[in-house]
């Protein structure tokens, strides 16, 4: 199905199942420990052996020699695979660095070897017996030092300019020109990357934990230089990803290589202390923002520049993305520059670009509002735009930012907000902050297969994944709505490369694209059912387990009495996203308290108001948003991969060192969804919400901390060491 004109009325609009708060259909499996994650498939042919990964001890250099003899002789060891015996390997299209080092080492903890043994204990022990001699070479590990050598990129990443930014900024009566920094961050999903690999002759099956089945299937085949038809990738349950599991990673490759060498299925879970440096991370940024305003508060000039780093051949953190679209202003510029760094591979983490970009932009907006003597909500409302500010003849498909801000302000009690440093509660300084949320809506081609059997059971099959987003449930809701059957009559099978290729889970495109693909397949199935029932032409209504055409009716199951009916289709998107800017919007409100003695900052209240098209399942969508808000608190107050600029690695590479929020950090969180349906994005009229929830949270926290203390911090995370000397004297 091609989606190239705005959706008319369709069966989803009935909203009898879709749009209802629905508990996860996979919930009972998950809460009882029965959902099998990658390392836990007990149906693998043969008893898997255990693989343990050895990570490189240097950030950059060459392996002069590897002595694996002692490890190979160790009890229980079945194989040791290094670059010397791995065979010729390619590199996946989505990977920047190789997944197996040697002889060159590209980053710290890059996989150097996998040891396969009968037991986990034996593999771990033997891995420590491998002697590697490295020739360490100098590398670039400091973004600030590399900043001046950073280069502009082309294509979508090229600098933009509209009007006369320099002139308009220079002549603006109120100006802001500030630098902000965001640190390297780690996805830190709870399930480490893990894979079981099993070979049968030339055929390879991997049970893995991956957000994008088809990307990783192709990249595994490309890396192993084998036909893609010979690889099957299965990923039904994924213990969190946040972008960290978008790509083929070393667990899958090392398990495959280990299994081939040991002639046994092999399971590998990447050890937690390797995760931060072996896997990808969100790159740090240095950002400069210039705002020029009239005294009336209207933005005349808006400029946003960002610098980030990555390995040779890597990409930018696109932190200026939202600034092209979020606020009005006739004179505009953005620019991004990329430095080559020898730190581990930078790549997408939840809301890449917008998350760090808004952390900076929305502090800048707060600062400018203060300079103008305006309320920060009012300042944002004043500078709203209903068209793409770079191409004013291009409207947004739907844009309710103003309502998000205004409804949120009312709900949160924003009018009670006082000036900086004015509110005390015992030893706590208390403040409120706001930030706009913005994330583009992306659509991806997505396919599904749907089957109807003689019992009236509908089975959905697609390689789409559920990374905690609620995919199982919204797919079941979609099929139930389309076919008029109860939720309990729908079986959803996900995450298997033998199923139709889907959009996968990333860029908050998963929910809308994958359900739209299923919608297309259901449309086909409906046609096939009507035809099978011989009901002839006329509008078919599927409801209550029955099919009605005109005055003819039948149980849906009857259509499949003589054999299963199968339909398959995919949704493909035309150019509606060119004609209309498709984005999601929101507003975050935060109340924070800062201990006036110690500077400890804690969040007391949080509210998000989101406008993201039709909300397919308010329960799961709300969880996506509160989860993102939680991650935003982490980004604001604690999360930072600390770089050792001498050795070139992330030092705090475990969950004790890299702090993420715990229960005690997070208060009750409230989420409101604006009632919307966006007919320009898909027949589902839904947009993504999982990344929107993160966008702006950090700045709302930062602005609340400022409002509490009167001390502005522009370098994330906002830890007490950065402002303790500016809090008032206490003794």
């Amino acid at each position: 199905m091609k989606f190239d004109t705005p959706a008319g009325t369709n069966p989803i609009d009935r909203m009898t199942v879709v749009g209802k708060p629905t508990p996860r259909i996979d919930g009972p499996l998950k809460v009882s420990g029965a959902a099998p994650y990658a390392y836990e498939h007990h149906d693998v042919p043969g008893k898997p052996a255990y693989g343990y990964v050895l990570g490189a001890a240097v950030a950059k250099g060459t392996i002069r020699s590897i002595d694996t003899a002692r490890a190979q002789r160790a009890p229980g060891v079945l194989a040791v695979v290094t670059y010397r015996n791995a065979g010729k390997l390619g590199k996946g299209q989505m990977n920047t660095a190789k997944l197996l080092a040697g002889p060159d080492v590209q980053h710290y903890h890059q996989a150097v070897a996998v040891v396969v043994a009968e037991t986990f204990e034996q593999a771990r022990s033997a891995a420590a017996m491998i002697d590697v001699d490295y020739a360490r070479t100098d590398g670039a590990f400091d973004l600030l030092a590399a900043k001046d050598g950073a280069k502009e990129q082309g294509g979508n990443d090229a600098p933009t300019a509209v009007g006369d930014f320099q002139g308009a900024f220079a002549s603006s009566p109120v100006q802001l020109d500030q630098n902000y920094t965001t640190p390297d961050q780690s996805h830190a999903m709870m399930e480490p990357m893990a894979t079981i690999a099993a070979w049968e002759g030339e055929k390879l099956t991997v049970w893995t934990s991956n957000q994008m089945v088809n990307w990783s299937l192709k990249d595994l085949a490309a890396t192993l230089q084998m036909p893609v038809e010979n690889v099957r990738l299965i990923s039904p349950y994924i213990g969190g990803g946040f972008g960290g599991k978008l790509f083929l990673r070393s667990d899958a490759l090392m398990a495959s290589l280990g299994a081939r060498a040991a002639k046994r299925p092999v399971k590998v879970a990447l050890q937690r202390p390797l995760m931060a440096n072996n896997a990808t991370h969100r790159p740090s940024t240095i950002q400069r923002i210039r705002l020029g305003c009239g005294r009336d508060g209207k933005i005349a000039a808006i400029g946003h520049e960002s610098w980030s780093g990555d390995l040779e051949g890597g990409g930018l953190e696109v932190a200026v993305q939202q600034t092209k679209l979020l606020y009005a202003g006739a004179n505009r510029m953005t620019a991004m520059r990329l430095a080559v760094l020898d730190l581990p591979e930078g790549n997408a983490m939840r809301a890449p670009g917008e998350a760090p970009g808004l952390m900076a932009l929305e502090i800048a907006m707060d600062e400018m509002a203060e300079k103008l003597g305006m309320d920060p909500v009012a300042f944002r409302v004043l500078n709203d735009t209903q068209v793409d500010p770079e191409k004013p003849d291009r409207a947004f498909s739907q844009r309710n930012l103003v309502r998000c801000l205004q409804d949120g302000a009312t709900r949160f009690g924003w009018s009670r907000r006082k000036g900086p440093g004015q509110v005390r509660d015992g030893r706590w300084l208390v403040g409120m902050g706001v930030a706009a949320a913005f994330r583009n809506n992306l659509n991806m081609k997505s396919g599904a297969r749907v089957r109807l059997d003689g019992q009236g059971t509908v089975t959905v099959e697609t390689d789409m994944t559920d990374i905690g987003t609620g995919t199982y449930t919204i797919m079941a809701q979609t099929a139930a709505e389309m076919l008029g059957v109860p939720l309990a009559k729908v079986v959803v099978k996900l995450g298997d490369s033998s199923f139709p290729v889907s959009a996968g889970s990333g860029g908050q495109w998963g929910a809308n694209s994958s359900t739209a693909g299923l919608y297309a397949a259901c449309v086909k199935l409906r046609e096939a059912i009507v035809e099978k029932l011989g009901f002839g032409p006329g509008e078919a209504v599927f409801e209550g387990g029955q099919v009605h055409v005109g005055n003819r009716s039948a149980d849906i199951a009857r259509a499949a009495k003589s054999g299963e009916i199968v339909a398959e289709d995919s949704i493909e998107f035309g150019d509606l996203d060119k004609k209309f800017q498709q984005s999601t919007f929101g507003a975050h409100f935060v109340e924070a308290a800062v201990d006036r003695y110690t500077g400890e900052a804690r969040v007391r209240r949080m509210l998000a108001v989101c406008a993201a098209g039709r909300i397919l399942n308010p329960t799961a969508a709300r969880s996506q948003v509160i989860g993102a808000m939680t991650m935003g608190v982490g980004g604001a107050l604690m999360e930072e991969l600390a770089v050792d600029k001498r050795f070139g690695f992330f030092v705090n590479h475990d969950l004790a060192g890299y702090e993420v929020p715990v229960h005690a950090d997070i208060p009750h969180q409230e989420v409101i969804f604006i009632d919307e349906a966006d007919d320009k994005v898909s027949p589902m009229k839904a947009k993504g919400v999982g990344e929107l929830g993160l966008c702006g949270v950090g700045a709302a926290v930062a602005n609340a901390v400022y409002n509490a203390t009167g001390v502005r911090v522009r370098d994330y995370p906002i830890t007490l060491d950065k402002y303790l000397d500016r809090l008032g004297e206490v003794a």
Partner: protein
Amino acid sequence: MTQGCGAISRRDVLKTSAAGAAIAGSLGTGSVAMAQAEPNAPPTAAVRMKVNGKQTSLTLDTRTTLLDALREHLKLTGTKKGCDHGQCGACTVIVNGRRINSCLTLAVMHEGDEVTTIEGLGTVGDLHPMQAAFVEHDGFQCGYCTPGQICSAVAVLEEIRAGIPSHVTEDIGAAPGMTTLEMRERMSGNICRCGAYSNIAEAMAQVAGVKA
């Protein structure tokens, strides 16, 4: 003070507790088999535990953690390995009524112990009230930390009822209150990167019969 560390009081301290005596008694001399199947093979030891009410006997490489004994030897993979270093809580199980990180304890140290894992709390068709409350309040997303969260949540309510103080207990001389503030502090050893904390607090409050 060396003298002051008197015989009587030291004996009190050294006194073997009732549970300890039972364990020591069942083991006799306390020397554990160091059988080696082949000359090079790692030392093994036998351990008997009651897991989810079922008596189990295992002979394990001494290095095997309780977590790996459950997951890799008993196929009880409901208990998760998130970090293997006591930094995330995904491996939380209840041993002799107390929650612990199963990754930071050796299986052979649990001779005679009663271990309850998520599979022992309830099953898909017969959920424990806490499991049901997690589903109802959507107290999870990816589900990987969830079994640990639930084992912890069940134990936390018991800890509050037992009067064990926490970091947020206002008056440590008094019994702690059954509040979500107490629950949040006590649950902090269970990290949820999906960020379901607010919903977990509601699920726990429901089971505890208090207002979230």
